[in-house]
Protein backbone atom coordinates (compact mmCIF):
# COMPACT_ATOMS: atom_id res chain seq x y z
CA UNK A 1 0.00 0.00 0.00
CA UNK A 2 2.56 2.51 1.19
CA UNK A 3 4.70 2.28 -1.90
CA UNK A 4 1.84 3.41 -4.15
CA UNK A 5 1.44 6.70 -2.37
CA UNK A 6 3.13 9.75 -3.81
CA UNK A 7 5.54 11.57 -1.46
CA UNK A 8 3.26 14.61 -1.34
CA UNK A 9 0.27 12.56 -0.27
CA UNK A 10 2.36 10.75 2.28
CA UNK A 11 3.70 13.92 3.90
CA UNK A 12 0.20 15.41 3.89
CA UNK A 13 -0.95 12.36 5.84
CA UNK A 14 1.94 12.66 8.29
CA UNK A 15 1.10 16.36 8.75
CA UNK A 16 -2.51 15.39 9.56
CA UNK A 17 -1.23 12.83 12.07
CA UNK A 18 0.70 15.68 13.70
CA UNK A 19 -2.41 17.86 13.83
CA UNK A 20 -4.39 15.05 15.49
CA UNK A 21 -1.62 14.32 17.97
CA UNK A 22 -1.64 18.03 18.83
CA UNK A 23 -5.27 18.09 19.98
CA UNK A 24 -4.57 17.15 23.63
CA UNK A 25 -1.83 19.79 23.76
CA UNK A 26 -4.21 22.41 22.36
CA UNK A 27 -6.75 21.49 25.05
CA UNK A 28 -4.12 21.52 27.77
CA UNK A 29 -2.66 24.89 26.76
CA UNK A 30 -6.05 26.60 26.72
CA UNK A 31 -6.54 27.26 30.47
CA UNK A 32 -2.86 28.16 30.94
CA UNK A 33 -2.75 30.57 28.00
CA UNK A 34 -6.04 32.21 29.04
CA UNK A 35 -4.58 32.77 32.49
CA UNK A 36 -1.38 34.13 30.98
CA UNK A 37 -3.34 36.69 28.94
CA UNK A 38 -5.37 37.66 31.96
CA UNK A 39 -2.36 38.13 34.25
CA UNK A 40 -0.44 39.98 31.52
CA UNK A 41 -3.31 42.46 31.39
CA UNK A 42 -3.48 42.93 35.15
CA UNK A 43 0.32 43.30 35.22
CA UNK A 44 -0.04 46.30 32.91
CA UNK A 45 1.30 44.89 29.64
CA UNK A 46 -0.24 46.09 26.39
CA UNK A 47 -2.12 43.62 24.18
CA UNK A 48 0.78 43.66 21.70
CA UNK A 49 3.28 42.86 24.46
CA UNK A 50 1.18 40.01 25.85
CA UNK A 51 0.54 38.36 22.49
CA UNK A 52 4.06 39.24 21.33
CA UNK A 53 5.53 37.34 24.25
CA UNK A 54 3.53 34.23 23.34
CA UNK A 55 4.48 34.64 19.66
CA UNK A 56 8.23 35.18 20.15
CA UNK A 57 9.01 33.23 23.31
CA UNK A 58 6.43 30.42 23.34
CA UNK A 59 7.47 28.86 26.65
CA UNK A 60 4.83 28.86 29.38
CA UNK A 61 6.71 28.72 32.67
CA UNK A 62 9.20 31.41 31.66
CA UNK A 63 6.43 33.71 30.46
CA UNK A 64 4.65 33.56 33.82
CA UNK A 65 7.96 34.16 35.54
CA UNK A 66 8.63 37.17 33.32
CA UNK A 67 5.26 38.67 34.30
CA UNK A 68 6.11 38.32 37.97
CA UNK A 69 9.52 39.88 37.42
CA UNK A 70 8.12 42.75 35.34
CA UNK A 71 5.57 43.44 38.06
CA UNK A 72 8.44 43.57 40.56
CA UNK A 73 10.26 45.96 38.20
CA UNK A 74 13.17 43.57 37.73
CA UNK A 75 15.78 44.60 35.15
CA UNK A 76 15.65 43.29 31.58
CA UNK A 77 18.96 41.42 31.79
CA UNK A 78 17.89 39.53 34.90
CA UNK A 79 14.60 38.51 33.26
CA UNK A 80 16.43 37.30 30.16
CA UNK A 81 18.99 35.31 32.19
CA UNK A 82 16.23 33.73 34.28
CA UNK A 83 14.40 32.79 31.08
CA UNK A 84 17.51 31.16 29.67
CA UNK A 85 17.92 29.08 32.83
CA UNK A 86 14.30 27.90 32.89
CA UNK A 87 14.36 26.98 29.19
CA UNK A 88 17.79 25.34 28.92
CA UNK A 89 16.06 21.95 29.32
CA UNK A 90 14.92 22.25 25.69
CA UNK A 91 18.56 21.71 24.72
CA UNK A 92 18.31 18.09 25.86
CA UNK A 93 15.01 17.62 24.08
CA UNK A 94 16.38 19.08 20.87
CA UNK A 95 19.42 16.77 21.04
CA UNK A 96 17.12 13.80 21.58
CA UNK A 97 14.90 14.74 18.63
CA UNK A 98 18.00 15.22 16.50
CA UNK A 99 18.86 11.59 17.21
CA UNK A 100 15.45 10.44 15.99
CA UNK A 101 14.57 12.77 13.15
CA UNK A 102 14.73 11.73 9.51
CA UNK A 103 14.79 15.36 8.42
CA UNK A 104 18.07 16.38 6.79
CA UNK A 105 17.39 20.00 5.78
CA UNK A 106 18.93 22.40 8.29
CA UNK A 107 16.33 25.05 7.53
CA UNK A 108 13.47 22.70 8.30
CA UNK A 109 15.26 21.56 11.45
CA UNK A 110 15.75 25.18 12.51
CA UNK A 111 12.06 25.83 11.89
CA UNK A 112 10.81 22.83 13.86
CA UNK A 113 13.22 23.68 16.69
CA UNK A 114 11.15 26.78 17.43
CA UNK A 115 8.19 24.60 18.36
CA UNK A 116 9.97 22.30 20.83
CA UNK A 117 8.25 22.43 24.22
CA UNK A 118 7.88 19.87 27.01
CA UNK A 119 4.58 18.88 25.44
CA UNK A 120 5.47 18.72 21.73
CA UNK A 121 8.68 16.88 22.58
CA UNK A 122 6.82 14.29 24.63
CA UNK A 123 4.13 13.72 22.02
CA UNK A 124 6.59 13.48 19.12
CA UNK A 125 8.99 11.18 20.99
CA UNK A 126 6.33 8.73 22.13
CA UNK A 127 4.20 8.76 18.98
CA UNK A 128 6.84 8.39 16.27
CA UNK A 129 9.80 6.10 15.73
CA UNK A 130 11.25 8.50 13.20
CA UNK A 131 10.29 12.11 13.73
CA UNK A 132 9.38 13.80 10.44
CA UNK A 133 9.32 17.57 9.88
CA UNK A 134 5.75 17.21 8.52
CA UNK A 135 4.61 15.61 11.79
CA UNK A 136 6.26 18.36 13.83
CA UNK A 137 4.61 20.92 11.55
CA UNK A 138 1.12 19.65 12.30
CA UNK A 139 1.88 19.24 15.98
CA UNK A 140 3.32 22.74 16.31
CA UNK A 141 0.46 24.31 14.32
CA UNK A 142 -1.98 23.00 16.95
CA UNK A 143 0.06 23.71 20.06
CA UNK A 144 1.52 27.08 19.05
CA UNK A 145 -1.83 28.13 17.59
CA UNK A 146 -3.60 27.30 20.84
CA UNK A 147 -0.97 29.08 22.93
CA UNK A 148 -1.02 32.31 20.91
CA UNK A 149 -4.77 32.49 20.28
CA UNK A 150 -5.77 31.77 23.88
CA UNK A 151 -3.14 34.20 25.24
CA UNK A 152 -4.81 36.92 23.18
CA UNK A 153 -8.33 35.82 24.15
CA UNK A 154 -7.44 35.76 27.84
CA UNK A 155 -6.21 39.34 27.52
CA UNK A 156 -9.25 40.56 25.57
CA UNK A 157 -11.89 38.81 27.64
CA UNK A 158 -10.04 39.68 30.84
CA UNK A 159 -11.24 36.48 32.43
CA UNK A 160 -10.43 32.81 32.33
CA UNK A 161 -12.76 29.81 32.39
CA UNK A 162 -15.31 29.25 35.19
CA UNK A 163 -13.34 28.53 38.34
CA UNK A 164 -14.18 24.84 38.69
CA UNK A 165 -13.38 24.11 35.05
CA UNK A 166 -10.24 26.25 35.13
CA UNK A 167 -8.98 24.24 38.08
CA UNK A 168 -9.91 20.80 36.78
CA UNK A 169 -8.44 21.59 33.35
CA UNK A 170 -5.09 22.31 34.98
CA UNK A 171 -4.64 18.52 35.13
CA UNK A 172 -4.87 18.22 31.32
CA UNK A 173 -1.17 18.33 30.43
CA UNK A 174 -0.22 15.95 33.23
CA UNK A 175 -2.96 13.55 32.15
CA UNK A 176 -1.56 13.78 28.63
CA UNK A 177 1.98 13.03 29.85
CA UNK A 178 0.66 10.00 31.72
CA UNK A 179 -1.36 8.87 28.72
CA UNK A 180 1.73 9.10 26.52
CA UNK A 181 4.14 7.25 28.76
CA UNK A 182 2.10 4.48 30.44
CA UNK A 183 1.78 2.21 27.36
CA UNK A 184 5.62 2.21 27.05
CA UNK A 185 6.09 1.65 30.79
CA UNK A 186 3.89 -1.45 30.53
CA UNK A 187 6.00 -2.90 27.75
CA UNK A 188 9.58 -1.87 28.48
CA UNK A 189 11.34 -2.34 31.78
CA UNK A 190 14.11 0.02 30.74
CA UNK A 191 11.56 2.79 30.16
CA UNK A 192 10.02 2.07 33.56
CA UNK A 193 13.43 2.26 35.28
CA UNK A 194 14.20 5.58 33.57
CA UNK A 195 10.82 7.03 34.44
CA UNK A 196 10.90 6.08 38.13
CA UNK A 197 14.51 7.08 38.75
CA UNK A 198 14.03 10.45 37.08
CA UNK A 199 10.74 11.10 38.94
CA UNK A 200 12.41 10.43 42.30
CA UNK A 201 15.48 12.52 41.46
CA UNK A 202 13.41 15.45 40.20
CA UNK A 203 11.24 15.39 43.33
CA UNK A 204 14.32 15.51 45.55
CA UNK A 205 16.18 18.11 43.45
CA UNK A 206 13.09 20.35 43.31
CA UNK A 207 13.49 20.93 47.05
CA UNK A 208 16.86 22.57 46.50
CA UNK A 209 17.11 24.00 42.99
CA UNK A 210 14.74 25.78 40.54
CA UNK A 211 12.53 23.42 38.56
CA UNK A 212 14.26 24.06 35.22
CA UNK A 213 17.53 22.73 36.61
CA UNK A 214 15.81 19.95 38.55
CA UNK A 215 14.37 18.57 35.30
CA UNK A 216 17.70 18.83 33.47
CA UNK A 217 19.69 17.21 36.31
CA UNK A 218 17.18 14.40 36.90
CA UNK A 219 16.91 13.63 33.17
CA UNK A 220 20.66 13.64 32.56
CA UNK A 221 21.59 11.57 35.60
CA UNK A 222 18.93 8.92 35.02
CA UNK A 223 19.50 8.67 31.26
CA UNK A 224 23.25 8.16 31.73
CA UNK A 225 23.00 5.86 34.78
CA UNK A 226 20.40 3.55 33.24
CA UNK A 227 22.26 3.39 29.92
CA UNK A 228 25.43 2.45 31.76
CA UNK A 229 23.62 -0.11 33.98
CA UNK A 230 21.95 -1.72 30.97
CA UNK A 231 25.29 -1.87 29.20
CA UNK A 232 26.72 -3.82 32.15
CA UNK A 233 23.65 -6.06 32.32
CA UNK A 234 23.80 -6.90 28.62
CA UNK A 235 27.51 -7.64 28.86
CA UNK A 236 26.93 -9.96 31.82
CA UNK A 237 24.10 -11.78 30.05
CA UNK A 238 26.27 -12.02 26.96
CA UNK A 239 29.08 -13.64 28.98
CA UNK A 240 26.63 -16.00 30.69
CA UNK A 241 25.53 -17.31 27.31
CA UNK A 242 29.08 -17.94 26.09
Amino acid at each position, binding site marked *: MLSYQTPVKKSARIFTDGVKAGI*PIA*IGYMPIALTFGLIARTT*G*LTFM*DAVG*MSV*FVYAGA*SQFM*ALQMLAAETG*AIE*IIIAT*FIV*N*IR*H*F*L*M*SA*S*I*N*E*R*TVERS*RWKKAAM*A*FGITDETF*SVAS*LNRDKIEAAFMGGLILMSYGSWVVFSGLGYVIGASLPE*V*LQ*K*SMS*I*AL*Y*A*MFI*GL*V*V*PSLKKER*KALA*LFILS*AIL*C*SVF*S*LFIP*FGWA*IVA*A*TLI*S*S*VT*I*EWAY*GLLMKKEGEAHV
Partner: protein
Amino acid sequence: MFSSVIWVILGMGVVTYVPRMLPLVAIKAEGVPPFLQGVLKNVPFAVLGALIFPAIFTIQSGSLLHITWDDFFFGLIGGAMAFIASYLEWNIIFVVLSAIFVLTVYSLIL
Protein backbone atom coordinates in the same frame (compact mmCIF):
# COMPACT_ATOMS: atom_id res chain seq x y z
CA MET B 1 5.40 51.89 32.47
CA PHE B 2 6.88 49.11 30.32
CA SER B 3 8.05 50.94 27.22
CA SER B 4 11.01 48.59 26.95
CA VAL B 5 8.99 45.39 27.27
CA ILE B 6 9.47 44.59 23.60
CA TRP B 7 13.26 44.33 24.17
CA VAL B 8 12.72 42.02 27.11
CA ILE B 9 10.44 39.89 24.94
CA LEU B 10 12.91 39.72 22.05
CA GLY B 11 15.75 38.88 24.45
CA MET B 12 13.66 36.14 26.02
CA GLY B 13 12.83 34.89 22.53
CA VAL B 14 16.51 34.63 21.56
CA VAL B 15 17.69 32.83 24.72
CA THR B 16 14.74 30.42 24.45
CA TYR B 17 15.23 29.68 20.76
CA VAL B 18 19.00 29.09 20.81
CA PRO B 19 18.95 25.99 23.10
CA ARG B 20 16.01 24.63 21.07
CA MET B 21 17.81 25.10 17.79
CA LEU B 22 21.52 24.41 18.40
CA PRO B 23 21.50 20.60 18.80
CA LEU B 24 19.19 20.10 15.82
CA VAL B 25 21.22 22.33 13.54
CA ALA B 26 24.76 21.77 14.78
CA ILE B 27 24.97 18.08 15.72
CA LYS B 28 25.43 15.53 12.97
CA ALA B 29 23.38 12.53 14.07
CA GLU B 30 25.83 10.12 12.39
CA GLY B 31 28.76 11.47 14.40
CA VAL B 32 27.28 10.75 17.84
CA PRO B 33 29.03 7.87 19.69
CA PRO B 34 26.77 4.81 20.36
CA PHE B 35 26.68 5.26 24.15
CA LEU B 36 25.54 8.86 23.80
CA GLN B 37 22.97 7.79 21.19
CA GLY B 38 21.57 5.41 23.80
CA VAL B 39 21.50 8.16 26.41
CA LEU B 40 19.63 10.52 24.06
CA LYS B 41 17.09 7.81 23.28
CA ASN B 42 16.50 7.45 27.03
CA VAL B 43 15.74 11.14 27.41
CA PRO B 44 11.97 11.02 26.60
CA PHE B 45 11.15 8.53 29.38
CA ALA B 46 13.35 10.36 31.89
CA VAL B 47 11.92 13.76 30.91
CA LEU B 48 8.38 12.48 31.39
CA GLY B 49 9.20 11.17 34.85
CA ALA B 50 10.63 14.57 35.77
CA LEU B 51 7.79 16.53 34.17
CA ILE B 52 5.07 14.58 35.99
CA PHE B 53 6.73 14.26 39.43
CA PRO B 54 6.60 16.23 41.64
CA ALA B 55 4.70 18.82 39.53
CA ILE B 56 1.40 16.91 39.36
CA PHE B 57 1.06 17.25 43.15
CA THR B 58 1.93 20.95 43.22
CA ILE B 59 -0.27 22.46 40.49
CA GLN B 60 -1.56 25.25 42.76
CA SER B 61 1.33 25.64 45.19
CA GLY B 62 4.14 25.38 42.63
CA SER B 63 6.63 23.65 44.93
CA LEU B 64 6.83 20.61 47.19
CA LEU B 65 7.91 23.01 49.93
CA HIS B 66 4.46 24.66 49.83
CA ILE B 67 2.30 21.64 49.01
CA THR B 68 -1.19 21.47 50.55
CA TRP B 69 -3.50 18.47 51.09
CA ASP B 70 -5.90 19.95 48.55
CA ASP B 71 -3.09 20.10 46.00
CA PHE B 72 -1.97 16.57 46.81
CA PHE B 73 -5.41 14.96 46.49
CA PHE B 74 -6.14 16.93 43.34
CA GLY B 75 -3.04 15.53 41.63
CA LEU B 76 -3.57 12.07 43.07
CA ILE B 77 -7.17 11.74 41.85
CA GLY B 78 -6.53 13.25 38.43
CA GLY B 79 -3.31 11.26 38.03
CA ALA B 80 -4.96 8.00 39.11
CA MET B 81 -7.78 8.47 36.59
CA ALA B 82 -5.28 9.21 33.81
CA PHE B 83 -3.21 6.20 34.84
CA ILE B 84 -6.17 3.80 34.78
CA ALA B 85 -7.42 5.17 31.45
CA SER B 86 -4.00 4.91 29.85
CA TYR B 87 -3.34 1.49 31.36
CA LEU B 88 -6.50 0.38 29.56
CA GLU B 89 -4.96 2.03 26.48
CA TRP B 90 -7.78 4.48 25.87
CA ASN B 91 -7.26 7.07 23.19
CA ILE B 92 -5.18 9.93 24.65
CA ILE B 93 -7.99 12.46 24.18
CA PHE B 94 -10.19 10.36 26.46
CA VAL B 95 -7.38 9.97 28.97
CA VAL B 96 -7.21 13.78 29.20
CA LEU B 97 -10.98 14.33 29.20
CA SER B 98 -11.60 11.63 31.82
CA ALA B 99 -9.10 13.23 34.22
CA ILE B 100 -10.72 16.66 33.72
CA PHE B 101 -14.18 15.15 34.21
CA VAL B 102 -13.30 13.31 37.42
CA LEU B 103 -11.72 16.44 38.91
CA THR B 104 -14.68 18.59 37.91
CA VAL B 105 -17.01 16.18 39.75
CA TYR B 106 -14.59 16.08 42.70
CA SER B 107 -14.48 19.90 42.91
CA LEU B 108 -18.26 20.21 42.65
CA ILE B 109 -19.07 17.71 45.42
CA LEU B 110 -16.35 19.03 47.72
